[in-house]
């Protein structure tokens, strides 16, 4: 009698197990596939090419594993489940991203090798020396994991950004450093310097950065009114970690109180605009694209500020929401993103004759990126 009862129990589990694996397989095969994951902001794997060659060398099999992982039914929910379960088990980070608190995520930092750091400072120093007529500045912005290290805790995964920033500044003998850390420390509990779900700094953070730069570079300040233009931003940190947040980010822009005219020319695209903001991007998932519509190899901005000064800005995406603060100080700003730029930067600098050159990077991009060094060294 007892045995019969257990038999029913196992039979039932057998049916459930078969239903789960057959059901999931069936759903995986018939459900429509997305080509793009808006949550992770990446193109998902496509079905691997089936040929004798791709089967023989195993590419087909690997491709199918990736394809199934990328298109599995209820994938986003499963990834969130995994991340939260792993966090319960004790994992402090997921794909290099940690929770600062219930509502804020941050990307961990891995210090690059000493040789990479030396190569970088050497290339920047050499560029500054070659363009000694211009004043060269370097602003290296720490990431949330460093600025909010008190929230990240003593045993946060990854390395210390402060030591890296100090190393870089110490290595940049021919440049003036713009250190934002002090102003960040003073204001970090008053304003959100970074988006809770994204790796970028907010416009509030960029404004702090501007105040720090103003003191060093002698920039012109003006009055702004900060306006929230979007309340539904879920950034890349949330998507790629799988951590869920209780609320979404809002995107703010700082609008000057006095009107100013300028043109933005996307070089190489033959496109002009009269604003730093591309509000059509607010329809997309990555709302940070609202600043200049994203990253471009070279953007030239001409203003009517009448100061006559010219700036060469070599930057990563942190600069996109920072540039609007510079419009009162320069008549011409050339914005170069070395990750997409393939022309001769020395030629660019020599032909225009810039008063100032500013490098603006966040630590995580600078430490992982090698495009800057190659662009600078390409004489």
């Amino acid at each position, binding site marked *: 009698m007892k045995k019969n009862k257990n038999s029913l*129990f196992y039979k039932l*589990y057998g*049916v459930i197990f078969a239903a789960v694996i057959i059901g999931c397989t069936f759903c995986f095969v018939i459900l429509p596939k997305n080509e793009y994951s808006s949550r992770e902001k990446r193109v998902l794997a496509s079905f691997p090419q089936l040929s004798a060659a791709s089967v023989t060398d195993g590419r087909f*099999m690997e491709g199918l*594993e990736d394809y199934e992982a990328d298109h599995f039914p209820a994938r986003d929910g*499963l990834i969130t489940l995994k991340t939260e379960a792993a966090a319960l088990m004790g994992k402090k980070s997921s794909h290099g991203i940690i929770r600062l608190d219930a509502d804020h995520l941050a990307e961990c930092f891995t210090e690059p090798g000493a040789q990479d750091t030396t190569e970088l400072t050497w290339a920047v120093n050499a560029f500054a020396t070659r363009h000694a007529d211009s004043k060269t500045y370097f602003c290296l912005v720490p990431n949330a994991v460093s600025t909010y290290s008190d929230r990240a805790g003593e045993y946060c*995964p990854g390395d210390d950004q402060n030591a890296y920033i100090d190393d870089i500044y110490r290595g940049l003998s021919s440049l003036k450093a713009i250190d934002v850390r002090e102003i960040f420390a003073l204001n970090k509990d008053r304003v959100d310097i970074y988006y809770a779900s994204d790796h970028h700094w907010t416009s509030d953070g960029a404004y702090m950065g501007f105040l720090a730069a103003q003191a060093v570079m002698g920039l012109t300040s003006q009055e702004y009114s900060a306006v929230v233009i979007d309340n539904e931003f879920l950034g890349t940190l949330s998507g790629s970690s799988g951590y869920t947040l209780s609320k979404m980010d809002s995107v703010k822009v700082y609008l000057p109180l006095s009107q100013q005219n300028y043109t933005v020319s996307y070089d190489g695209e033959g496109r002009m605009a009269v604003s730093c903001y591309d509000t059509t991007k607010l329809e997309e998932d990555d709302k940070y694209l609202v600043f200049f519509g994203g990253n471009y190899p070279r953007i030239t901005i001409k203003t009517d500020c009448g100061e006559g000064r010219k700036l060469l800005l070599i930057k990563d995406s942190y600069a996109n929401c920072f540039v609007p603060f510079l419009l009162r100080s320069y008549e011409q700003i050339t914005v170069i993103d070395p990750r997409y730029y393939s022309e001769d930067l020395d030629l660019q600098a020599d032909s225009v004759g810039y008063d100032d050159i500013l490098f603006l990077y966040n630590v995580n991009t600078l430490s992982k990126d090698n495009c800057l060094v190659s662009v600078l060294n390409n004489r």
Partner: protein
Amino acid sequence: MVFSGLVFLFIFLPSVLLVYYLVPFKRKNAVLAMFSLVFYAWGEPVYVLLMLYSVVLNYASALIMESSPNKKQVLVFNVVTNLLILGFFKYCGFLTGIVRDITGADIPELKVALPIGISFYTFQALSYVIDVYRGKVKPQRNIVDFAAYIAMFPQLIAGPIVRYSDISAQLRKRRISLEGFGRGSMRFTFGLAKKVLLANVLGETVEMLGTGDLTVLGAWIAAVCFTLQIYFDFSGYSDMAIGLGRMLGFRIGENFDHPYISSSVTEFWRRWHISLGSWFREYVYIPLGGNRVSAAKHIRNIMIVWFLTGLWHGAAWNFIVWGLYYGLLLLFEKYVLSHIKLPKAVALPLTMLFVIIGWVIFSANDMASAFSSIGAMFGAGAAGLTDKLSVLALIESWKLIIVGALFATPLPAMLCKKLTDNEAGKAAVMIYAMALLVLCTAFMSAQSYNPFMYFRF
């Protein structure tokens, strides 16, 4: 293909099961053999030819042996060929390296990709031909049935090593029932959870700590996490194999019996990788005379078996040292400790200590790093007592270490058994198994880390 991947669980397995259950019984072995070859080809498309060769070689050897007056020559030829194939693919690089180190000759290093599971299926094949030679089993006349035995995907790549004599009757006749399927799928689910939820996650801590510049705390956490990782990885794989076998109607013998509750190293090896231990006992140790010989010969026999056991695990010095280490420990227990009766409270932790040190040797890249890790555990050459990384590793892993230690004992299985005595308990076990299945699927979908520990075997 590995069991702990989406393609296995959500394409391959449903396909096998559907076809296997739909065809009449006499076709089932053919279906099993065919799908097994696909399974093998998944990771090693070219080596499927080697697998087919092995099937034909051993199938033919046994038949020839039956009718030939020179049984012994056929056996020797077969065993040598099998071992040469294994030797070529597994030990060639290692041997040329040794020759180069000794002679200083400029021999190019021969690097051949190791066919997955070759150590397992070669040993299965050897058990077959030797048993046919000994007259213990009749040779298999149906090559499809024989291929189903050699290539059987549940235990193909990580064991258990199923001896032909244990399964020959089942190849002809086995009971396939829904209850058996259910028992098998529950066993599979628990095995999958061991691999995906415990072994893989513990492995992340081992990987994070690395091997260089370990602190005392870091070295211990790495050693303990690896000890648990390899148990849950390997025994989880065996559970999955046994469960899959059961789903297909096969009864495969147990491979692990809670080795970490052993009170002696001898007991540990009775509980760890049982099918390998019994293979070596049956085909090496006893033919050498076992323990019914003089003490000197017995010591020789033990050391030969454990040298081979170490070497079987991988073509590197640390595996050999690891094997000999166990040989010495077993001899010490046999000849010295047998006169002293240690209380369990001492014997159990002491055994675990030796097992953990064994795993440090086993997991190291080479002997130098094995020594430095063991040294670091006891403070010699350690980079301090603790540092940020080792404290972080502790914070991240302590819960899993406790859960893992608990699941290494028979307690969870006992609890499960007790619960199925009443209806509420059954519901709890059912929900628990389903939750594990969902959680494993989630971990496999997020596929950040799914190493396969047996590539070197």
